[in-house]
């Protein structure tokens, strides 16, 4: 594998069980924005720990992290 195969800013995280590369993100807020998910209608678990919404901006993601996102849609 080439050492030039990956841009320095790319990060691989396991999102809902799938290994996925993301460019230019470092926090949960940025991940949600990248995925176009509304902050207030998701539940986010980082490495099996539930993250509270007021910490999304401050919670850093790292290479190899496991992230589970459960998204809710309206209606009941």
């Amino acid at each position, binding site marked *: 594998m080439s050492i030039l195969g990956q841009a320095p800013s790319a990060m691989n995280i396991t999102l809902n069980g799938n290994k996925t590369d993301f460019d230019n993100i470092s926090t949960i807020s940025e991940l949600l924005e990248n995925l176009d998910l*509304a902050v*207030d*209608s*998701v*539940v986010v*678990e980082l490495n099996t720990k*539930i993250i*509270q919404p007021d910490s999304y901006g401050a919670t850093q993601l790292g290479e190899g992290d496991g992230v589970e996102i*459960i*998204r*809710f*849609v*309206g*209606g*009941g």
Partner: protein
Amino acid sequence: MLTVNEQQVSHEAVQTIGELAAIHKPLADLFILNGYPVPSTTRVRDGDTCTLIVKGEIPTPEEMNSLLSARHTPGVQERIRNSTIAILGLGGLGSAVAGAMAKIGIGKMLLSDYDIVEPSNLNRQHYFVDQIGMMKTRALKENLLRMNPSLSLELIEEQLTESALPGLFAKVDVLIECFDDPAMKAATLRCILSEATMQNVAYVGSSGMAGFGDSNTIQTKQIRPGVYICGDETSAAGPGQGLMSPRVGVAAHHQANQALRLLLQEDEGRKH
């Protein structure tokens, strides 16, 4: 042996359903033999199922319980009767879930909603036109007690927030999330997964049931043992895709059945 009003009885002394009624239900004015109304002079045979009815008579709590025990088997019914559930949001999902749980004789229900019955609700929510303007909690209580007068119901009429949930619901067996608002749906699951005091509360949430898409795309999905979400995960309510009674009902009954399964300890991967 005969089955009379769901109980096994010997019929040595009787020949007709009228004679049977004289012993077991003297005021009966309607005689059902193996599912069909018959005259009181109809003969009964070993193995027959007889239902003796006094028109307009409301069964006592003991009679209701024995009817349900006979239908559901005593062990199952005892569990159901000793259980407490909470239903959060009494719209299309919540009102239908509540009806299903009332009919199977759940012991206690905490019913939570701060809204009133509006005309636009009636395309899917289990209220009547003459209940428009009532608090949903009170209208639903009225309706549920007509289905099963033995229910114990507690009404919570405040607008719920994430931080209020543990104080109100930490002692229920199953919490059933039936909110319309996706933010409160997410908040409820987050609370269940992160609050220590909610660890023993099983959860059945909901996401995606608007419109009239394929029924079979609505599923019950395990998040982890004791934590489930029902719906298709994508069909949001919005312009061009309204909430409609049939599909909301499919999702609601997924929720009700999963709640029942949890009460009966049918929960893959969970230790009891």
